[in-house]
């Protein structure tokens, strides 16, 4: 049962640093979760509109469109789409100050994880929202 749920968990990793993205991918893979990638905010929005995701891991500092703007935009689209279940967005960022956290939550993110993070920290952040 749990396994089938995990397989259905669709995750988008929004991250411009490919090593960081790779690490997240490997951690998720260990839990049988496959992930998609976007290297900046506008690509993330395109993918968000194209596919259905349950979870987005969102970096904050990115070229073109940062994670906070991207999240606000996604939340706006969700409102337009009247989606029943908004996608869970977890900030995964190297900004670690209290006001960074507040900014993230204000922009509509559900959670906040600071880099560097341990695999267990990522998983427990996901477990707050999904059964994996």
């Amino acid at each position, binding site marked *: 049962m749990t396994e089938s749920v995990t397989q259905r968990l669709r995750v988008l990793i929004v991250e411009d*640093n490919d*090593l*960081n993205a790779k*690490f997240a991918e*490997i*951690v998720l893979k260990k839990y049988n979760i496959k992930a998609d990638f976007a290297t900046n905010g506008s690509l993330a*929005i*395109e993918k968000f*509109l*194209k596919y259905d995701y349950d979870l987005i891991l969102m970096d904050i*500092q990115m070229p073109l469109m940062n994670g906070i703007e991207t999240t606000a935009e996604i*939340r*706006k*689209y*969700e*409102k*337009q*789409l*009247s*989606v*029943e*279940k*908004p996608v*869970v*967005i977890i900030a995964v960022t*190297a*900004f*670690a*100050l*209290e*006001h960074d*956290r*507040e900014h993230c*939550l*204000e*922009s*509509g*993110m*559900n959670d906040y994880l*600071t*880099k*560097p*993070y*341990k*695999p267990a920290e990522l998983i427990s952040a996901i477990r707050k929202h999904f059964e994996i």
Partner: protein
Amino acid sequence: MIKRILKRGSLFFILFLVLVSNPLMANHGTYETSGSLMIFIILSLFFIVLLFFMWVLYRRRKRKFAQLVSDLELKIEKTEKSIEEIKQHSEEIVSRKRKMLIQDKEDLKKNLKSMQSALDSAHESARRNSVLLSNISHTLRTNLNDILGFSYLLGNDFAKNESTELYEFSENIRKSGDSLMHLLNNIIDISRIEANTFNLGLQNCDMYALMDELKGEFEPVAKQKGLQVFFQNEDVPLFSADVEALKHILTNLLDNAIKYTDSGFIKVIHWAESERINVSVKDTGIGIDKVYQDEIFEPFRRQSLGYSKTTYQGAGLGLPLVKQMLGLMGGTVVLESEKANGTTITISIPLSKPISENLSPGGLKSTVDEKKKDVQLKHGVNKVLVIDNDKLNNMLIKKMLVKVPNLIFVTNIKELNKIIENNGKSLEPFDIVILNIDFMKENGGVSLKQELQKSNPVFKKTPFVALSNIEDIGLDEKMIKAGFKTYIDKPINKEKLFNTMNTSIN
């Protein structure tokens, strides 16, 4: 006084005249005795002499008096002169002082100006420093994420494959990364505190959860050193505090306790007492010499400085940071230690009331808003054509119309022609066409609709929805006149789109 003497003299004279004239009068008419005349003359002479003396005396006194008066006048004159001098002098002094004061004022102004500019440049450099610090921190964290993450993954794999040596190597990388991370956190926090930019973010703190987290983090580290860690918890209510800061404080204390203890145990106890939360971290480590106990809370003052090698690594930032953070939180720290006899550090912070829970993040709030809308699309909408070159909007429509089995998007004329040509006469009519009125050019959609309806019978009876990029008053009427069934403007939402489509379909 002289006048008084004269008065007295004339009084004597009159008395004398009366006394003398009496015997004269008594002997009047006899003139026998020339003796009495003689006496009279002598007395008169005597009196004249007396008068003379008195006059001389008077003159002398008068002269003396005049002298005195003139002396006095002179003195008065002198005094007046000196008063004048003093006056002049003091005026001079006053004006000189005034000048000096004006000069001082100007100097002060200048000083103030230069101080202000110094302050400004200090602020500017502090701002630049904090930007630099923030950038450095971001870069370090991003890279440490890779170092720590991949070394962890490596370690796991090596452990699985039982490659003990390789596992140790990767663990070494991870441990070094960890201590860099710890140092980075301390540096950032201490510079933020010193720059007065450390703001406390209040959250509700569940002490048990926090302790569990610390236990999970430190138990394995202690175990590796052969140390035991005990956590002893008493009932503590939920309270509000900067949880991250509190965690950072306790992390520093536990980190130190493990670092400076080679054998024995570490014990962490927390309890609530008279509106305060207390946590004590006790170790059986090397202890701190009494001499150093005061300065150990000053930054960069770790025992044993200089080039000499010490067994224990560290920058000595931990305890100063603990003290400063506690200072911001209204907390205190007490150190009890003896060299070679362990250390107990007890912190105490106010037990503040928990904050109300409805301050949850925006992401959750928006969910509530959306639930009330529940418009459904009419049944029997099976084939929809959307003509718009706005790809993002098309994606949105695609998401909204996910239940429509035959949904076609066209973003340019070529694609449109292809669809019409490919199907030839077998092209089945659309239930609805959504057309951007400014497709390709201004009003391009309007003319396209006319062309389509003229050239192809399939479109003749199809309802067209006018889609506009902007909201424009009166545009809806115009579009209905132009033969569109309904009108919708961007940004679209599900409710709006469904309503529009429902009214368009007969």
